[in-house]
């Protein structure tokens, strides 16, 4: 039992690493994608839109396989599996975050920009002090949905052989001829997501002082 829990704790650590690194890169990268999606340059706008369509229109599991194996078949280069997982997750999640950001940015009334301009705020000041705080409040609920999905999606990393929580649970289960480790893994995911949703609740409450 302790042996099993120790193994699973190790798997959990890998899952958390995937989770954290994906967020670390895709939250800012998604913003750049959103900017591209809203670009007035038709070429940029169309290309970014195509990228988003592909990321949202195909299974993440397939994207994982593609990102890991395509360089090998095309250029005969292979690379670290864990890196491939992060790359695929970041590409996929950035597309979703970009659309959430876009919705948030477009929900801010034009008057906020106009008031900022007339008062003499610079463009960066307007964005970081006036627009962004309002966007964050606006998108927090949809962001929490996506982040919770990410916790569960980390289980897909096993597709290309990365030993995250669910893979460890499955191998332990078959070694012990018992489904118990699978259900224990379920509890692990549930606890992680409980923490994530509590964190978002806290954030929403913090920002509820204005409408």
């Amino acid at each position, binding site marked *: 039992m302790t042996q099993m829990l120790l193994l699973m704790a190790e798997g959990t650590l890998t899952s958390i690493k995937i989770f954290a690194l994906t967020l670390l890169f895709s939250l800012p990268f998604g913003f750049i994608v959103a900017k591209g999606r809203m670009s007035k340059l038709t070429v940029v706008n169309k290309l970014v839109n195509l990228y988003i369509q592909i990321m949202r229109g195909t299974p993440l599991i397939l994207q994982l396989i593609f990102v890991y194996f395509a360089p090998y078949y095309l250029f005969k280069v292979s690379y670290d599996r864990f890196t491939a997982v992060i790359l695929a997750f970041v590409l996929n999640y950035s597309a979703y975050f970009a659309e959430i950001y876009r919705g948030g940015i477009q929900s801010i*009334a034009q*008057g*906020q920009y*106009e*008031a900022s*301009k*007339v*008062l*003499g*705020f610079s463009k960066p*000041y307007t964005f970081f*002090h*006036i627009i962004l*705080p*309002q966007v964050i*409040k606006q998108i927090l609920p949809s962001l929490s949905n996506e982040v919770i999905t990410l916790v569960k999606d980390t289980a897909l990393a096993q597709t290309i052989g990365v030993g995250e929580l669910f893979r460890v649970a499955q191998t332990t289960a078959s070694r012990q001829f018992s489904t118990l480790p699978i259900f224990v893994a379920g509890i692990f995911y549930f606890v992680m997501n409980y923490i994530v949703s509590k964190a978002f609740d806290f954030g929403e409450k913090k*920002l509820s*002082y*204005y*409408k």
Partner: protein
Amino acid sequence: MSILSVEHLQKNFESLEVLKDISFTVEKGEVLSIIGPSGSGKSTILRCVTQLEKPDFGKIAICDQVLCSTNNGSFTYANKQTAREIGLKTGLVFQNFNLFPHYSVLKNIMQPQIAVLKLSKEEAQKNAFALLEQMGLGEKANAYPCQLSGGQQQRVSIARALALKPQMLFFDEPTSALDPELTGEILSVIKSLASTKMTMVVVTHEMAFAKEISDKVIFMDDGVIVEQGSSEDVIVNPKTERAKKFLARYAN
């Protein structure tokens, strides 16, 4: 020398000519009201002068600085630095206030002074409290805009504009989003500003108010100035049929 001079101003939105040939001046300490039907281009004038829109032709000069000019048919706009300097001399009060919802009343008034005028926090706060007192909102300093009535929000937005010490203040239908009771509240604030010789340009549908406070009135229709003169001339004794017809609606 006029504090604001506008000559032959033209503005098109695509093929729509919103301003056709607008010329007028405002002297220091004067109050100018711009009246006329919706869509006549009143707000667009304010938006050109406060740099929210770029005109297509003509000249705008504010406090002897040229924002845009047209020489031999070619239109030139001031460089960033000059445009910014001019922008600091003008303030604009919007129809729907446009307060920053995530800032308290106090911060709405303090932040522009700190970020734009580079005042210290203490100084900005002192000015903000003085302005709130002047607006009768002394106790609302820590409230958020969503907790205020429309009239109170508009008074905060006037205080926010005044905090930057503009040379002239523009009002774009400042009472159109308010009920009659709250309208009175805002009009009396503007009246008291007029008595301090603040230079103001007010776009309004409040005829009685315009007549009372204005040194000069412009009646616009379809992108042109149909009449301009003293409030007596334009509001009480309009000469053109168009102005007579428009003002008749306000007679009762």
